[in-house]
């Protein structure tokens, strides 16, 4: 088992190096470079720099060096100093811009995933063990509705309802008076009155799909002979269902836990824009629109790193839960 984990971790290293290189190439892909964009920015604001000044800046920043040298400088700055470069649009260090957003995104994503699982797994198990019962149909209808209604629409409706009937403004993650303030208990309490909307929106969309997956997995597993064996041992229905088929039916969930991480990171962009949430999604969208290369590149790098870490994580979890994986 330790052997397996060590091997998976070792394999992650070349993968990480490779994705970081690809991320850097993507940053370099748009025509022009940092200086071109900087000069254009200055020109827009009425300033002017000469060709010679531009060339000097290029030399100073090392932009004439070969790609591999530049990559090395970029990645070693990130790894050794945590320096992701500068955002042109915000005129600030990228690392100052993203970490708070990354933290908030992780909180919202993790919470919504936990809610998704808390809803989806019991409902899926119920729907499968009581197939074609009244509640199975109710959950099925709910599931298709939840899957069919776009997240942002649900977000809009919830915001409108709370505004009209409860007279609350729940956009953003905190009320305007707390924005930019240091974190206090009052601000945290205020956040709790806002955070439930993105959680509900993200959890319903996710749960609706997962209920269907869980139900289908369970229906497959419930027909397997080992379930009958468990009944033949004298266990009650609840013990049989939760100890045996659920254990096996959960494996596909566990193997996709890793993908949930990057998906939640970038997948909720529209909802986040609608709800005016200070998460990573809207910032990434903005960076891509403005060709803010270092900001966008940093996001792409972070997303890729999360994907790799998530995959390793779910591989390890799956091996822990399913002995058949460990030895193949």
């Amino acid at each position: 088992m330790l052997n397996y984990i060590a091997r998976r971790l070792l394999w992650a290293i070349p993968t990480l190096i490779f994705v970081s290189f690809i991320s850097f190439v993507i940053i370099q892909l748009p025509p022009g470079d940092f200086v071109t964009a900087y000069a254009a920015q200055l020109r827009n604001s009425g300033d002017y720099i000469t060709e010679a000044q531009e060339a000097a800046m290029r030399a100073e920043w090392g932009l004439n060096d070969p790609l591999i040298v530049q990559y090395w400088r970029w990645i070693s700055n990130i790894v050794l100093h945590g320096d992701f470069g500068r955002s042109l649009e915000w005129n600030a260090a990228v690392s100052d811009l993203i970490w708070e957003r990354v933290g908030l995104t992780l909180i919202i994503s993790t919470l919504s995933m936990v809610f998704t699982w808390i809803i989806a797994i019991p409902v899926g198990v119920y729907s499968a063990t009581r197939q074609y019962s009244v509640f199975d149909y109710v959950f099925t209808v709910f599931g298709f509705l939840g899957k069919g209604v776009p997240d942002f629409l649900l977000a809009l409706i919830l915001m409108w309802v709370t505004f009209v009937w409860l007279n609350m403004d729940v956009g953003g993650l905190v009320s305007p008076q707390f924005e930019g303030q240091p974190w206090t208990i009052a601000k945290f309490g205020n956040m709790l009155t806002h955070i439930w909307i993105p959680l509900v929106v993200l959890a319903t969309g996710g749960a609706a799909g997962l209920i269907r997956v869980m139900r289908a997995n369970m229906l497959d597993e419930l027909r397997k002979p080992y379930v009958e064996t468990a009944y033949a041992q004298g266990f009650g229905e609840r013990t049989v269902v939760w100890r045996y088929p659920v254990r096996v039916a959960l494996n596909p969930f566990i193997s996709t836990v890793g993908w949930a991480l990057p998906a939640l990171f970038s997948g909720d962009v529209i909802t986040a824009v609608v709800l005016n949430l200070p998460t990573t999604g809207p910032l990434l969208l903005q960076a891509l629109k403005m060709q803010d290369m270092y900001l966008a590149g940093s996001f792409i790098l972070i997303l890729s790193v999360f994907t790799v870490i998530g995959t390793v994580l779910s591989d390890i979890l799956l091996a822990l839960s399913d002995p058949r994986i460990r030895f193949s």
Partner: protein
Amino acid sequence: MSDTTRTSQSSMPPERLLQLDNVGVHFPTRDGLVKAVNGVSYHVNKGEVLGIVGESGSGKSVTARSIMRLQPKNAINASGTIRYRCKSGEELLINEQDRLGRTMRNLRGNEIGMIFQEPMTALSPVHTIGTQIMRTVMLHRQVSKADARARAIELLTKVQMPRPTDIVDRFPHHLSGGMRQRAMIALALACDPALLIADEPTTALDVTTEAQILELLKRLQDEMNMAIVFITHNFGVVADIADRVAVMYLGRVVETGTVDEIFYEPKHPYTQALLQSIPRLGQSHGRRLRTIAGMVPDPFNVPTGCSFHPRCMQAVGGICDVKTPDDVVFASGQRARCHFAGQDRQAEAAQ
């Protein structure tokens, strides 16, 4: 009719462990009602092996599952009684028990063990052999985890599992088919059941392994003085292991008797035909093997009268296709459900 109901409510003879009377199990389907089991009666005495033989779809597995009350959820228990004598000596009417009730749960795995056809899939793939056996032991007996583990190793030794102390921590996918069936048997025997239901336990195994498993079951049955209901479609296996045999066709027991009676003096034309369709050593070469004409009728259109009459060589028009035969009971206790049982010599002479 009321008379027969009354007699079926009387108590069983003291040596009797299990008795089925006129058991009927039906399945409602989109195309109509399937009478999968249609009035089956058989009994098992303590320490006795009853072989149940029949083609696929003859209802032998469904009947066995109704002893455990483990039929599919849509099954209808249409008729009959199933009586079982508990270890305490008290008689229990299984057909009146709730499927998931305490009484049934206490019976399963404790008094009645069951082994299944597919050793590959009948064990949980994500738990070790030891865990699965220990759970059963701890469910029915108030023992510590360490004692349950010791019991698991003891059981694995009993079923002649190689390296039991190592296998106890292994997962089913580490074991071969024969070893899995041994583990399955160890699981079924976890609490020393008085009755073991074996539903085609050797069908999925190769012939060598089959012989080993049969040998093991015979030895365990002898050691533990346990009764076995052994379901199979293989007459050779029955001859090897059973004391008595019940032959089933289309949801009915057509003939019961001791192994010798069934093999040497079969009274029902279906049993006779089945035995003639088995190749035998020393039989003259060049003779074609006899087969039973026709197909098993589809369960929605069971023939009227004797359900075997369309395929029966000895069927007599006007009787067999009209009237459902009753059991003919012979002095030895052998029973055959045929209008002409015991008269087949004349029938043969008439051909």
